[in-house]
């Protein structure tokens, strides 16, 4: 039951992230009116006027005077002649666009930013986890297959990296190599391959002395082929589970990096930098920081449940 729900949440998130540009949401980075639309609470419906030239004007307050409309932006009132409006009348030009999750300090739509943030956060998580699995498989397979000196060196190296807390390592790497989307993905991938390496190495050590592997070796099968066809398939399920758990982990670390100002650079929304931007306005506009945090919690819980249930189902030890 929880298994189905968590898988469904993951699937829905993935689909939303995939089709985000075609959902008819507002541009996540657009700032149509930083003054009027600034920090609107969820479910706000600000006043807007469609103009004859196709543009749109927003207003904190609207009033009709003879032959014209007056709209207030901040402290100032502006006068608009009726003929400049779309349709030439207030009734035809007036709109009340709905901001379901409100707006942030720049007047950007929070709903749209959370959805597009899912796109970037999930992309970062997925690519970094894939990279971690690939690196881990490479290191683990080399260590397990070669044994001896190389095995010792690689595994001590793994121990060394494991003893630096991941967030510190990631912070150090970004501080040294600069900040961009690509760096974020590479840094997160490069700091999370250790568990995968241990899984692959363990699996290979367990199978290395089996007869069929010895036979394949004797027959002159190349090491790459040996790993790919004879040794790795047994590790597939644990690796996939590790990957799923890693995606959730990576999303959390990306959020922490972004919060510290070291993740994906603005204005592109990620859940982490949205929380960072909402931090200064916490008491006046609680929704800016709260909503992306809820998105993180939902995603990580769903990924964790999916991964854990898969582990329980397929892991031979648990039975």
């Amino acid at each position, binding site marked *: 039951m929880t298994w189905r729900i968590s898988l469904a949440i993951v699937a829905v998130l993935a689909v939303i992230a995939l089709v985000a540009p075609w959902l008819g949401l507002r541009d996540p980075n657009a700032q149509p009116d930083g003054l009027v639309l600034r920090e609107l609470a969820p479910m706000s419906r600000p006043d807007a006027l469609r103009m004859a030239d196709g543009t749109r004007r927003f207003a904190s307050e609207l009033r009709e005077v003879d032959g014209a409309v007056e709209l207030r932006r901040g402290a100032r009132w502006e006068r608009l002649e009726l003929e400049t409006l779309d349709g030439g009348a207030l009734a035809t030009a007036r709109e009340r666009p709905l901001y379901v999750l409100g707006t942030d300090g720049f007047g950007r739509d929070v709903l749209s930013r959370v959805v597009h943030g899912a796109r970037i956060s999930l992309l970062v998580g997925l690519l970094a986890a894939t990279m971690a699995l690939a690196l881990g498989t490479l290191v683990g397979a080399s260590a397990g297959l070669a044994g001896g000196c190389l095995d010792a060196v690689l595994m001590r190296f793994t121990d060394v990296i494991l003893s630096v*807390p991941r967030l510190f390592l990631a912070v150090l790497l970004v*501080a040294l190599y600069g900040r961009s989307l690509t760096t974020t993905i590479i840094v997160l991938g490069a700091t999370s391959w250790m568990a995968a390496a241990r899984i692959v190495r363990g699996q290979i050590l367990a199978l290395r002395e089996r007869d069929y592997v010895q036979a394949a070796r004797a027959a002159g099968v190349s090491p790459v082929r040996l790993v790919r066809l004879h040794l790795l398939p047994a590790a597939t399920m644990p690796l996939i589970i590790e990957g799923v758990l890693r995606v959730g982990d990576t999303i959390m670390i990306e*959020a922490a990096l972004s919060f510290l100002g070291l993740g994906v650079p603005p204005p592109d929304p990620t859940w982490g930098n949205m929380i960072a931007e909402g931090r200064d306005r916490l008491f006046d506009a609680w929704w800016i920081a709260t909503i992306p945090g809820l998105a993180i919690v939902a995603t990580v819980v769903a990924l*964790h449940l999916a991964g854990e249930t898969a582990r329980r189902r397929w892991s031979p030890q648990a039975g």
Partner: protein
Amino acid sequence: MIRYLLRRLAVAVPLMLGVATLVFILLETAPGSPVDRVLGDRPVPAEVRERIERAYGFDRPAPERYVRWLGALCLRGELGWSHSRARPVSRAIGEALPPTLLLAGTAMVFFLVAGIALGAWSAARRGRWQERLVTLLSLGAYAMPAFWLGLMAILLFSYRFGWFPASSMRDVDAASFSAAGRLLDLAHHLVLPAAVLGAASAAAMMRFVQAGMLEALAEPFVLAARARGVSNRRLLWGHALRRAILPVINLAGLSLPVLVSGSLVVEVVFAWPGMGRLTYDAILTQDTGVVLATTMLAALFVVLGNLLADLAMAWADPRVRLREESAG
């Protein structure tokens, strides 16, 4: 026990050397020279640059610099100069370390007490709604980024209810308080950050103790005790919990990396003047020397945590050290 300690130390020391080496290699391979990073965009004549490079030994080959750096680090604890705080890195760290130790220590006490109590309590109510609630709670706490949980705690408990201060370690008037008042003030400031920092570990501990208790409650010795007429309460808190608590020591040691990483963001959220805050300021001012030093210190915490956990396990459970000794 001494032999076991030496054996563990023989693992920990090279590990720390490895971390230092890794950090040096990262620094060497990063784009831009250290001199560039300090000078920034300021226009500096070439001969001045050269003089700086010579003065700090950057004109030497990398292996020589590595040996010198490691020597200064190991023999004199020298970590370089922090240009953002205008003092040696070691002194900046010396000032930032006590607040972090206080925060992390309190968080540890919190997560041990909360985790064990809630875990045992929920295990005693298996199959009922209390168990589900605790499980749900722990899952939520695990999935919440510490900095977001911190912001939410401030929003709720500082802003809405006004129960706890939202930032810093002391009241602005703390100097005028009596000694007891100052202590109380400090404790008051500690509550939120320590609870937030310990939340994720408390969640892990809770599930761990819960599972251990359920296992222990199914053992024959519990049935035997029950047959002897031992009360439910004593059965739970005396017999089963004692059995389930051993692995807790291990988990406490392993949760150190979580606390150390967490302190980085939690201290930023609560403006706590510790290592995390120091690291954050260093990031903002491109003070790489400080980031290097705090990274190594964080690793030291992790290695020490593992070491202490191993030792505590060996002390509590002779099988561990005997197995190790017969295997080695």
